[in-house]
């Protein structure tokens, strides 16, 4: 320890000799450090929990019975209930998706969120196209990019069929990038 520092310190009283005092000081530092760590590590883990935990545990949303879905005439808009974990609670929100068929006739479910800047894209029956009302992105009936400022086609969603019902896993995708990337 620096002697200057101690000049004003503890002058009136009898003090232990310097080597002894620095040993006790070191003991304090080591002991104090060990005990602080005991509390600091769990505190840090506790505070960082929501940052590292996987909150995007997305569930399957029921679109409806397969027999009721007939997208042969063109994409059908469906409202689905999406359940999401929000910390200690579970929220349910309504989202709209389009059920359509791809070129090979397979069922395909599209997110209605425009990959350009996130507006909701309507299907225009008379034009047989998806046209985004915000900046005019144009997509074909299976979501393929046709024109406008969008960087890619409309995003398809993961689906499964269970007991005659079509289920979709609703997700959000990054906008303004040419590839379909799921957002955290």
């Amino acid at each position, binding site marked *: 320890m620096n002697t200057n520092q101690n000049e004003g310190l503890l002058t009136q009283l009898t003090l232990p000799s310097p080597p002894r*005092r620095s040993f006790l000081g070191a003991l304090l530092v080591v002991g104090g450090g060990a*005990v602080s760590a005991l*509390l600091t590590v769990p505190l840090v883990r506790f505070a960082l929990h929501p940052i590292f935990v996987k909150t995007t545990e997305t569930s399957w949303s029921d679109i409806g019975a397969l027999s009721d879905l007939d997208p042969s005439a063109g994409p059908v808009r469906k409202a689905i209930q999406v359940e999401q974990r929000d910390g*200690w609670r*579970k929220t349910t929100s309504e989202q*709209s998706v389009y059920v359509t068929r791809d070129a090979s006739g397979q069922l395909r479910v599209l997110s209605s969120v425009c990959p350009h800047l996130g507006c909701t894209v309507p299907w225009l029956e008379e034009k047989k196209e998806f046209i985004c009302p915000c900046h005019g992105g144009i997509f074909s009936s299976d979501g393929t990019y046709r024109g406008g400022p969008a960087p890619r086609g409309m995003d398809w969603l993961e689906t499964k069929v269970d007991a005659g019902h079509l289920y979709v896993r609703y997700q959000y995708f990054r906008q303004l990038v040419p590839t379909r990337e799921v957002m955290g």
Partner: protein
Amino acid sequence: MNHETRGSPEVLGAVQQSGRLMRWLNRRTGVRNLLHEGLAEPIPGGARFAYVFGSGLLFIFLSQIITGIFLALYYVPSADHAHVTVEYIVKEVAAGSFLRSIHAYGSSAMILLLLLHITQTFLYGSYKGRRELLWLSGCILMALVLGMAFTGYLLPWDQKAYFATAVGTNMASEVPLVGDFIKRMMRGGAGMGTLTISRFFVAHVFLIPGLIFAFMAAHIYVFRKAGAAGPIHENPVRPRMQPQPFYPRQVLYDLAFSAALLIALGLLGHYLPFELGPKADPADAQYVPRPEWYYLPMFQWLKYWPGAKAVIGIVVIPSVIASLFALTPFLDRGLERRPWKRPISVGLYSLTLLGLIALGVISNRNDRRDPAVLQQLARQEKATADFIAAKFEPEEASRTGVPVLSPELEKGKALFSSLACNACHRPDGGGTAAGAKLKGLGKSQDQIKSLLLTPTKSMVAGGMTPVQQPDHDLAALSAYVASLK
């Protein structure tokens, strides 16, 4: 510094640098005097392990503040969320159960240390010799710590917390004249509910901690003014014994004790996590409430004062004991400190302490002898264990603001999203950065319809485009917009 590194020029340079920084800081803050003032406190007769309890209390209080602040990251003080958020902390959040246990056991540790601190002060006669204010501020701090334990206990809103607090707040109504008012004040109404949690939360987190800080500062200040009293043979006014500075020996003792306390709390928290029972169910008529150990003597005491006599047991006798206790340094004025030479004060203190312990033991024994109570307590323990073992289920967020709409409005609402109106305006009629608020326009359906067809100049400037849709769709959409309130 050891002798090998002393000669090293790099180390010497670093020390000089830090010395310069220290001088700079000191000229501006006077930190050196402050440090000197804090560390050079003379302790007559030297450092002892008997003096560690005050520092231990301060240390655990700091730990309570830190863990408390972190718990508040997840806790929500309301009757419908308090329990689920504590459950979330315990079952889901990393290290949550551990930190909550340290906080919950910490309250027991505070009270245990308080008892040890007071007992040491009493036996050593350390309240003597111009130390009345030191003692009184200590008494207030004790009441505040008990208040912290009482208010914190309710916050998890489980069965135990709910019923213990229901009993605790009911006791207040025994106070003559103002009892009922006090009870309502504490509960925020006649019954226990979400307002009770808010009140207890404010007391636990803002009010009482603030008072504790203030009285702790006063306590430490008057302690330093009077000086440490030293051992029982020392004169409390004019110390004669050879003093030793607080630093390093007493600091080391205090910190070693505090570290041992924290390690003990950590081990308890790790191996025996603090329990959380099922959510409070006020309708449960079977529940047998039992307070935490430190309130058990009072709980047992009340059983001996039925009906009209209750005011004596709950108000009069405790008030007399508390007043005698608070006035100790005024009543016991002699400078004699050796406990065996002060039979009355030490006798009364020991008797009160033994009485409290006896009451706690009797309460515990009564429970163990009553098969009906024993059975119910076992059932409650099982319910708690089952609850802790169950997987965490997130709370279903209530879906408000979704009224049942007529088919016409339902159609309008569907158009609102399919025509991407909701890209700029919120579906509930609220505004966004991109679009104006639609609720409460005060316009008729026809007015809205014509605005949809031919928007005004300012609407067009804001990005609104004419809605070109079949007439029946326009009618449905404008009916929906007109319905937004």
